[in-house]
C-alpha cells in the first residue's frame, strides 16, 4: 500500500500528466530533495522557490490568474501565518471582482502535531483556514483520500487548501489507489528516489487512474449507534481505535471522517446525530476558537431537541505552543485516553 506521501506524489503526477498542472513549487519541492516529506519527488513540473512564503503564495495567485494550474507548497503550516492576508485576498478575489477573476490554485501544507516537532512544527491550521471565505479546505486521513482529494482540489476552479497531517505522511491505508501495484515493494522501487546514488534517477510511474473524492463529502469510518464522533485527519485513526476498543464493551461509536473542512458534510453529521443523539467533535487545533465549536453550535441550534447529551468539543489546549518533550505534546493535543474519556462522559450523560 502507498503511504500518504506517495499518494500525494502520485496524485500530483496524475495532475501534471492529465489535469494541466504546470507548476508544483515551494521550498525544496523540486530536485534534488523532492520535498521534506518526499511528497514531490520525481515530478516533472516541480521546482524550488526562494525561501519566501509570501512570494510562493503571490506567485501562485499570478499563475492561477492566467488560467494555468499550479500546486504551491508551504513547507510547514507553521510558516503559512505570514501569508495570511494573501490567503485572504486569494479567497476574496472572485467575490471582489464580481465573479470575473477565478483563482484555480491549490496550496498544500503539512499540519499538526504527532511527530514531536515542538513549537514551530506542530501548528494546526484548520480553524484558521475555516475563516478564509472563498477557499475550499480539505484534510485527508489516508492515502486513497489523499489521492482523490488532491485530484478534486486540482480540478476545482476555486482556491483549495490541502492540509496534510505531518504525522500521517508515512501512514499506509488499506485500500489501493486505482493503478497502484499491489506489491508495496514494487511501488517503492518505481517511485521512491533511492537514498544513495540518486543521480540521474527517474521515477517509473504506475498507470494511475482518475479517482476523485468529492470536496464536501465526509465518510463513516466506524458505524455505531450510541454516539457520533466527528473528526478528520490524524484524529480519525485515534477515534477509530477508541471506537474499536469500546465496541468490546458494547459502546457503539460512529466515527465520521469529515475529509473536508469547507464546505463540510452537514447532512452526514446531521443524520448520524439524529440516529445517536450524542456527539463529540475531535480535532487537534487549539480549543479557542475551534472549528469544532462551529459544528457544536450548529448541532445545538438545529438538533437541540434530538440530543440526549450536551455536544462536546475535544481539541488542542489553548496554549502558545506545543512543547517538544512528549509529556508536553501529549498533554497538549488529544490522545487516545482523552478521546476515550470524552466518549464515555458523553455516553454516560443522562438528560
Amino acid at each position, binding site marked *: 500500500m502507498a503511504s500518504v506521501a506517495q499518494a500525494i506524489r502520485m496524485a500530483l503526477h496524475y495532475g501534471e500528466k492529465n489535469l494541466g498542472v504546470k507548476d508544483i513549487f515551494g521550498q525544496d519541492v523540486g530536485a534534488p530533495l523532492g520535498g521534506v516529506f518526499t511528497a514531490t519527488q520525481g515530478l516533472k513540473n516541480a521546482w524550488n522557490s526562494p525561501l*519566501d512564503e509570501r512570494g510562493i503564495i503571490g506567485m501562485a495567485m499570478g499563475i492561477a*490568474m492566467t488560467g494555468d494550474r499550479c500546486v504551491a507548497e508551504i513547507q510547514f503550516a507553521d510558516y503559512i501565518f505570514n501569508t495570511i492576508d494573501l490567503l485572504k485576498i486569494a479567497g476574496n478575489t472572485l467575490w471582489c471582482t464580481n*465573479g470575473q477573476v477565478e483563482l*484555480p490554485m491549490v496550496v498544500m501544507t503539512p499540519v499538526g502535531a504527532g511527530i514531536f516537532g515542538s513549537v514551530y512544527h506542530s501548528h494546526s491550521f484548520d480553524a484558521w483556514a475555516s475563516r478564509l471565505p472563498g477557499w475550499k479546505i480539505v484534510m485527508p486521513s489516508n492515502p486513497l483520500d489523499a489521492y482523490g482529494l488532491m485530484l478534486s482540489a486540482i480540478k476545482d476552479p476555486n482556491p483549495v487548501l490541502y492540509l496534510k497531517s505531518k504525522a500521517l505522511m508515512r501512514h499506509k491505508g488499506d485500500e489501493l489507489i486505482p493503478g497502484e501495484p499491489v506489491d508495496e515493494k514494487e511501488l517503492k522501487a518505481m517511485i521512491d528516489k533511492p537514498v544513495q546514488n540518486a543521480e540521474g534517477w527517474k521515477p517509473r510511474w504506475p498507470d494511475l487512474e482518475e479517482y476523485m473524492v468529492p470536496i464536501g463529502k465526509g465518510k463513516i469510518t466506524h458505524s455505531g449507534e450510541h454516539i457520533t464522533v466527528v473528526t478528520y485527519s490524524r484524529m480519525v485513526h485515534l477515534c477509530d481505535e477508541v471506537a474499536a476498543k469500546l465496541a468490546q464493551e458494547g459502546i457503539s461509536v460512529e466515527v465520521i471522517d469529515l475529509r473536508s473542512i469547507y464546505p463540510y458534510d452537514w*447532512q452526514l453529521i446531521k443524520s448520524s446525530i439524529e440516529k445517536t443523539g450524542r456527539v463529540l467533535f475531535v480535532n487537534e487545533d487549539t480549543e479557542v476558537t475551534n472549528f469544532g465549536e462551529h459544528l457544536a453550535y450548529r448541532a445545538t441550534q438545529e438538533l437541540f431537541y434530538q440530543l440526549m447529551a450536551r455536544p462536546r468539543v475535544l481539541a488542542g489546549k489553548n496554549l502558545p505552543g506545543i512543547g517538544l518533550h512528549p509529556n508536553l505534546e501529549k498533554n497538549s493535543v488529544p490522545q487516545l485516553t482523552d478521546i476515550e474519556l470524552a466518549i464515555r462522559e458523553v455516553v454516560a450523560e443522562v438528560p
Partner: protein
Amino acid sequence: MSKKTTVKAGSKPSAKKAAKPTAKAATKTSKKVTTKADNFGGLSEEILLRMHDLMVKSRVLEERLIKIYKAGEAYFWIGGPGEEAFGVPLGMLANKGQGLAHDWFHLHYRCTPTLLALGMTMIDSIRLIMNRSTDPSTGGRNFANHYCFPQWNVAPVTSPIEVQYPIACGTAHAQKRFGKKAISIVTGGDAGTAEGDFASALILASRKGQELPILITVQNNKFGISTPFEGQHGETNIADRARAFNIRSRVINGNDPVESYLAMQEEMEYIRKTGKPSFIEAHVTRLYGHSSADGANKKTHMFDPVFEFENRLIKAGIISEKAAKKIWEIYEEEGVLAQEKVRQEPSPTSESVWDHVFVGNENADWRKF
C-alpha cells in the same frame, strides 16, 4: 484571466475605439511637429496629442470623482491626479488584450490614467466610485479605482499595499512559459516598497537563468499617507535596490510624458527581447494628497504635469490654446452626464452578497449545506 460571463455590466469599448481619444476632433493640429527648442524626443505629433488628450481626460475624470465624493455620493476617494504623465504613456505602450499573448497589468489605486489609455470609459470609473451594480470592475463591492478589466489582462487592484508585486511575478512566469514576448507590468508607491512583497518580487524576478519578463515600476511621489520619503528611506534611489539584484534599472522624471514614454518604450523592448526584468522609478506629483482621508484638496504649489505639458504643446504650436480648452470642456461635460446617468443606475441587491463566493455561484452559505 478567467472570466465569468453571466454577469455583465458597464460599457466595454472595443480595442480600436479605445485607442482613439474621443475629444480629438477638438484639436487643431499644427503641421509643424516640433520646435528647435523642444523636439519632444522625436515623438510624433499624433502621439503627443493623444497623450495630452488622455492626460486631460484623466485629470477631468479624477476631479469629477473627487466632486462626487465631496457631494456625498461616494464613500471614499483615492486616485492618480498628478501621475498622468507616467500613467498615460504606460497604458499607450502596452500590448493590450486578453490572455498570455498580451501584457498583464498589476496596478495600484492611482492608475486611472493607465486605464483610460487602455480604453476604460469615464462612466465605468464613475460606476465604481458610486458603487453601482453596473460597475464592471467590482459590481459595487469595492473602493474607487480598484479596477479590474479581464478583457485587457488588468488584474484586480488590491487594497493591501504591494501584494501586486509577487502576483505579477506569477503572471510573468506563465507568460515566459507561453513564449510570446508578452510582459507583466506592476506599479506601486514609494512607501509600499518597505513591504516584504517588494523584495519578494525583486528576488523572484531576477533568479539566474529564471529571470522573468516583468516591468517593475515605483511611482515615487515622496509620500506614504503622511510619512515623507526621508522618513522611511535610507537609499538614495529606490531603483538602486533593483541593481543589487542585477535588474536593469533607471530613475525617470515621471512628470514628463515624453521622458516617460521613451523610457518605458525602451525598457519594454528590452524585456521583450531578453525575457529579463527591468525597473523604473518614476518621480511624480501627488497633486491631491493621499486620498479623501486627508481632504483630497489640490496642492497648488506643486508641479502640475498636465498643465505643464499642455503649455509646452501650445508653445510649440502643436495645439492651440482654444483647442486645448475645448478638450477640457468636452470631458467635463462627459463626466457630468456620466454622473447623472450613474445616479439612475441600480445598486447591488442585498441578497447578492452570496454571489461569487465560489465559482458558478456554488452554495457558500453553511446554513444550506
